[in-house]
C-alpha cells in the first residue's frame, strides 16, 4: 500500500471525522439554544410512548399512508440507507481490519448492497430531475448530495475487493470521496440523520401526550367509559 493511500485511509479520515463531529456538536448546541415548547395540559396518552412510536416510524411502513401507498419508494429508501450503512462500515473496516475483505462472499455482499444503493441513487436522481414537484423543491445541495452519494456507492463497489497491490485507484477514489463527504455532510441536507431523532421526538412527544400516537386503527375503547 502506498503511503498516500495509508494516510488517506487513516489520518485523513480521523481528521475529517473529528471535523464532522465538531461541526455536529456546534450544530446541536445551536439548536438547543432555541427555547423548547412545553405542554402544560393534562395528558391523554404517554409522551414517551408517542416519542418511541414516532422514532420507530421509519420501520413501520404500514403506519404512514405515504409509505403504504408508495411501497416501492419505501423499499428504495431501505436499500439506499442500507447502502449508506454498509459503505460507512467499509470505511472503518478497510483500514483497520483488511483481512475481513479477504473472503470473497463478504466482498460480494458489500458490493451487492452498494451496487443496489447505486441503482436507487440513479433512480432518485432521475426522479429529482424529471418530476416537476421534485424540481420545484430541489436545491443545488439536493442534487449534489444525491449525485455524490450515488457516485460514492459506485466507487465503493470497485474499492471493496481492497486490492491495492493491483490498483489503488478505486480505493483512493472511495476514500477521497469519503473525506469530501465527512467535510461536506454537516453543511448539507445529508445531515438529516442528525435531526431525525429530534424532529421525530418532538412530534412524537406532542402526539403521544395527546393520544394521537400510536395511531388508532379502530376498535379501541373510547374515552368516557371508565
Amino acid at each position, binding site marked *: 500500500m502506498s503511503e498516500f493511500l495509508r494516510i488517506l485511509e487513516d489520518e485523513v479520515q480521523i481528521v475529517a471525522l473529528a471535523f464532522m463531529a465538531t461541526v455536529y456538536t456546534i450544530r446541536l448546541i*445551536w*439548536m*438547543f439554544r*432555541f*427555547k*423548547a*415548547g*412545553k405542554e*402544560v*395540559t*393534562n395528558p391523554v*396518552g404517554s409522551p414517551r410512548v408517542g416519542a418511541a412510536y*414516532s422514532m420507530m*416510524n*421509519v420501520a413501520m411502513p404500514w403506519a*404512514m*399512508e*405515504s*409509505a403504504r*401507498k*408508495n411501497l416501492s*419508494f419505501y423499499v428504495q*429508501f431501505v436499500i439506499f440507507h442500507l447502502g449508506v450503512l454498509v459503505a460507512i462500515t467499509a470505511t472503518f473496516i478497510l483500514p483497520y481490519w483488511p483481512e475481513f475483505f479477504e473472503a470473497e462472499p463478504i466482498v460480494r455482499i458489500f458490493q451487492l448492497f452498494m451496487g443496489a444503493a447505486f441503482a436507487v441513487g440513479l433512480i432518485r436522481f432521475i426522479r429529482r430531475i424529471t*418530476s416537476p*414537484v*421534485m*424540481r*420545484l*423543491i*430541489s*436545491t*443545488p*445541495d*439536493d442534487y449534489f448530495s444525491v449525485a455524490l452519494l450515488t457516485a460514492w456507492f459506485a466507487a465503493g463497489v470497485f474499492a471493496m475487493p481492497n486490492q491495492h497491490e493491483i490498483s489503488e485507484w478505486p480505493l483512493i477514489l472511495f476514500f477521497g470521496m469519503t473525506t469530501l463527504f465527512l467535510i461536506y455532510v454537516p*453543511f448539507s*441536507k445529508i445531515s*438529516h440523520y442528525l*435531526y*431525525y431523532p*429530534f*424532529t*421525530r421526538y*418532538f*412530534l*412524537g412527544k*406532542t402526539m403521544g401526550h*395527546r*393520544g*394521537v400516537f400510536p*395511531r*388508532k*386503527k*379502530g*376498535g*379501541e*375503547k*373510547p*374515552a*368516557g*367509559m371508565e
Partner: protein
Amino acid sequence: MSDKTINISDVVNLPLDLKEQKKALEQKSPAVVEGKVKVYDPNRDNVKNLLEMLKNRLSRQTVSSLVGCVHCGMCSDSCHYALARPHDPTMTPAYKADQIRQIFKRHIDWAGRVFPWWVHAKTPKNDEDLNRLKNIVFGTCTGCRRCTLNCPMGVDTAVLVRLTRGLLTELGIVPEGVFVVDKDSWETGNQMGVSQEDYIETLEWQQEEVQAELDDPSFKISIDKEDCDFMYTVNPREIKYDPRSIGYACKIFHIAGESWTMPSFGWDQTNFGLFSGDDKLGGYIAKNLYEAARRLKVKRIVISECGHGYRSSRWEGYNWAKYKQDIPSESIMITLIRYINRGLIKVDPSRNPLPVTYHDSCNLARSGDLTEEPRWILERVCTDFREMYPNRSDNFCCTGGGGALSMVEYKPLRMEVAKIKADQLIATGAKLVCTSCHNCVDGLSDLIKHYKLDMKIVQILDLVAEALVIPEKNEKK
C-alpha cells in the same frame, strides 16, 4: 361538477385588501387603537420587522422542522391541494413550508447565510413579497396536518405555516376576513362578534323551546351559576346560526340529571388565534374560558362539537395562555358516551335509518385524541353507519379548515381542491355525512353545494337528539 382549474398565479398575486383595516382605523376600533390587532402600514419596514419577529418566535420544535426537511417529496401525495391539482407542484406541502424555510436559511441558518444560492436561501425584498407569502400560507393550506403525519422526517409543515401566518398577522398583512375575525375576537371575546345580549336571548329562547318540548317548566339553562358539575361552552356559530344544537345538548344534560351552567362571558370555545397564528389572541380567548370555569367553581369544562374549538380549548389554549390546566376539560362526545354507557339516557337507533358516514375533523383526529368516540356513539344512534376511506387520522380535511371559511378570496381554489373530499364522500353512498365540528359543517356544506352531492350534513348531537328516548314523565301530553 366543476372542471375549472384556477391559475395559481392569480391566487398568489391577489392584492392585499385593506378596506376593513381602514374602516377600523376610521372608526377608532378599540382593538386597533390598543394595538391588539395590527394594521398594515406601508411606511414601516415590514420585512425587517418580520425577520426580527422570526428570530424571537423560533422554538426548538419549529427549528427542527425547518432544518429537518430533506425534500424527498413524500408529502406531495398527502395534501388535498396537491392531490386535486396534480399538474401544480406549488401545492406540495414542502414548497409551502419552503417559503418560510428559505427566509430562515438566509437569516438564521448557517449554510444559507454563507451560500444562499446553494440551498435556495432567500429574503423577501418588499411588501409585495410578503403579500405573496400571505397568499401562499393563508390561501393554499388549511393547516390540516395530514402532510405532517405523512412526513418520514416528522416535519410539521402545518406548524410552520401557522408560524408564518402569525408573523404576517403582526404586520397586518392578512386576508380581510382574518383581520375582521381577529378584531371581533379582541373586542367581544368571541370570534363572530356576538353581543352578550344576543347570547343570553338565544339561551333563553332555547330554554323556552326545550321547556315546551318536554312540557317541563323546571328545565333551565342557568347562566353563571356557581358550583355546578360542569360549565358548557359553545361555538358562536351555534348562537348565530344553529341554536338548536344548544337546545339539544341542554335537553340531554337535563334528562341525564346533570348540574351544569353556561358562563355569561368566556363562553367561546373556538379560537381564531389557532388560524391567524396569533398566540396573544389565542391566549386571551382561551384564558377567558379557563377563568370563567374557575370563577364559577365548576368541576369540568364541557366543549361542544367543534374541531378547532376542542383543539384550542383542550390542548393549545393552555400553552398560549401559559395557564396550568387545573380544571379538566372534555368534548361533549365523552359526556354523551358516559350518559349512554351508564344508562342515564336511552337512545333508539331505528329513528336514524338513513346511511350515515363520519367525517373526522383534522383538529379532533390529527391534532386531538378523538377518533373512536364519535364512532362508538354513531353505532348506537343510527342503524347504517358506513366508514369513509381513508378515515381517522388519515382522513382528508373538509377543505374549510384553517380559517379558510373566512377568506372569501381563496374560495374558488378551495372549491377546486374540494374535489378530493367530494370523491371521498360519494364513495360511501351515504345520505348523511356526520361530523363533530361546526367548521367542518360549513366546509362540507360548501362543497356539497358546489359538487351537487345528494347528501345532508348532521352533527353527532343532531343524531343523538333524534334517537333520544324521552322518559315518560317528560313526554309531552
